[in-house]
């Protein structure tokens, strides 16, 4: 099938790659994916990817953690087993709030951090023991790979990519 063909263009420098991405985008081609050995600043913007929403989830997870901490301290220290906190036996959550601030802080951070990592893994579709998805092992070493789907424009794409400083261009069938 023609539409499952892709071009793999290899680069050896992040700046060259960044310029290549801009050239390809300027020529109105869709870039399927770019594989890098390390994060390249500005690449997401150059590829036209939508900004991440991970920060929003982090905020919501943080709020969840805070709410959980409030509920938990209230349940443990006030409701279930009322405790005399630092010689202040008022048995009121609000009046003993300062004592719970460290717990609220820690659980906010705990929830935000752990749930954010889990979200990131799920969103990136990676989990323990998963086989690597990168098409060429060199992208874990010193090469950058740009993957572009081909729609009957193989020759045009190849010549365009040649001009961008690609060190290797392969056309192959994607399963």
């Amino acid at each position, binding site marked *: 099938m023609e539409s499952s063909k892709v071009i793999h263009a290899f680069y050896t420098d992040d700046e060259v790659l960044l310029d290549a991405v*801009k050239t390809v985008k300027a020529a109105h081609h869709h870039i399927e994916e770019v594989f890098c050995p390390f994060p390249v600043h500005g690449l997401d913007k150059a590829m036209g990817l939508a900004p991440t929403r991970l920060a929003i989830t982090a905020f919501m997870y943080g709020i969840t953690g805070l709410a959980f901490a409030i509920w938990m301290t209230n349940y443990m220290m006030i409701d279930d087993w009322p405790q005399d906190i630092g*010689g202040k*036996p*008022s048995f009121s959550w609000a009046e003993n709030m300062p004592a719970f601030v460290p717990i609220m802080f820690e659980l906010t951070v705990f929830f935000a951090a752990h749930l954010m990592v889990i979200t990131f893994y799920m969103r990136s579709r990676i989990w323990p023991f998963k086989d690597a998805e990168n098409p060429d092992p060199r992208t874990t070493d010193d090469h950058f790979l740009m993957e572009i789907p081909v729609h009957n424009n193989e020759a045009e794409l190849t010549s365009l990519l040649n001009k961008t400083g690609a060190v290797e261009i392969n056309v192959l069938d994607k399963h």
Partner: protein
Amino acid sequence: MYQFSGRLKTFSLTLIVFGFVGLAYSFYNGSQKTLEDAKHAIEAANSDAHGGAHGEAATPHAAEADHDTHVVKTDNEAHAAMMHASEDKETTHGDAHASSEAHVASHDDTHATHVLHQLQNRPWSAFYVALFFSLGLTLLVLTFYAIQRVAQVGWSVVILRVMEAITANLLPVSIIMILVLAASVMHINHLFPWMAEGIFDPESDKYDAIIDGKSIWMNATGFMLRSIAYLVIWNVYRFLIRKGSIKEDTANDGNKTYKKNYNMSVIFLFLFMITESMMSWDWIMGLDPHWFSTLFGWYVLATLLVSALTVIAFVTIYLRSKNALPGINDSHIHDLAKFMFGFSVFWTYLWFAQFMLIWYADIPEETTYFVARFTEYKLPFLGMVVMNFVFPILLLINSDFKSRPWFVFIGGAVILMGHYVDVFVMVMPSTVGAQWSFGIPELSAIFFFIGLFIYTTFSAFAKANPIAKGNPFLKESEHFHYYNIEHTGEGSGDHH
């Protein structure tokens, strides 16, 4: 080269003159206060504040008792005992006039004298708050500048001269500080209670065993010598580093001058960390001689540091708008705003850490500090937490907002006001107690020091090359781009 514009100069001089006139009026007014005024103030306080305070104290206790009866019945007695203890504590350790009922007639005059001193202290305190704030934030700009040199920071090189210019404010405020402290030692004002006569004299009825126990530290000679030492150390570094920095521009000596400046800054930072803590004990904690807190030096540092960063951001934004800062871009503003945000959180951390430990331990000699602030200064004391924490958090958490001058300006204005209130609440409860308000003395002092700040900063900035062009990291700073933001006036393609 930047030219200190005539309009700005006139503006700053007007502020100084206005401030000076207001201060002269306030000092005259303060010196005219008599025992009669003090008695009036006490009466006024008794008629409105007293009933309120008692009502307030009664309600939560009633509610607590109610709540307790059906939770743990046997605890009621212990609880009642605790309530008594806390009431006792308020009477003995709160300011004396919180319990004027307990005063017998013979004590009325001593109490009135105390209030009179507080009334007379007001212009001094108002001046002292603004003076300390101005001196402290200038000092912290100098420290932040020294940190840039010691860490050999790349991004900030284009604004090094801005920081240098701000530190020109250090010398005049240091001189004023010495004069005010000398006035305290000479009993011209009553800011520091431990300087009063008879405190160290076992025969006197004013003898204070606690302060006497601290007399190794708290004595007028030592106090004056230390104060002079701090100010001299800071000013000497300022003088030398400014000279060295300007020399760097033309030195061309394989970074020899640069390395010399580095070494000087290392020594300064070492001395600064010691003198800053001691300065906060002497100049602020000494206002409350019975009270102590081991992290107070850090707390003062956080207050002054976040204010210093805000001021750097303000002056940078202003000079940038006048096109006086070549090589600066949005990323530099973004970084300054990140620091403002980060140190606001740091301040809150220290503020809360100090409060929580004292609240938890509940030792009377430590809680006095917060009792005074929760009773008479509730609004400014809690309001500043909103201004210094909640507001900056909400406004500056967004990455895009941090590089927009208007957001930085609004956030910074609230931070500066909040930290002024912070210093206000550090000083006022111990010097004027319940006799505080915000009026002509406070505003005049603020005007005076803002005017002085503008005048010294911008005339110093006009005297040197606006860019530290001999700094080996200048290129790095000019090319500085935080990857996540787009600079105004550039396409996204310009950034590497």
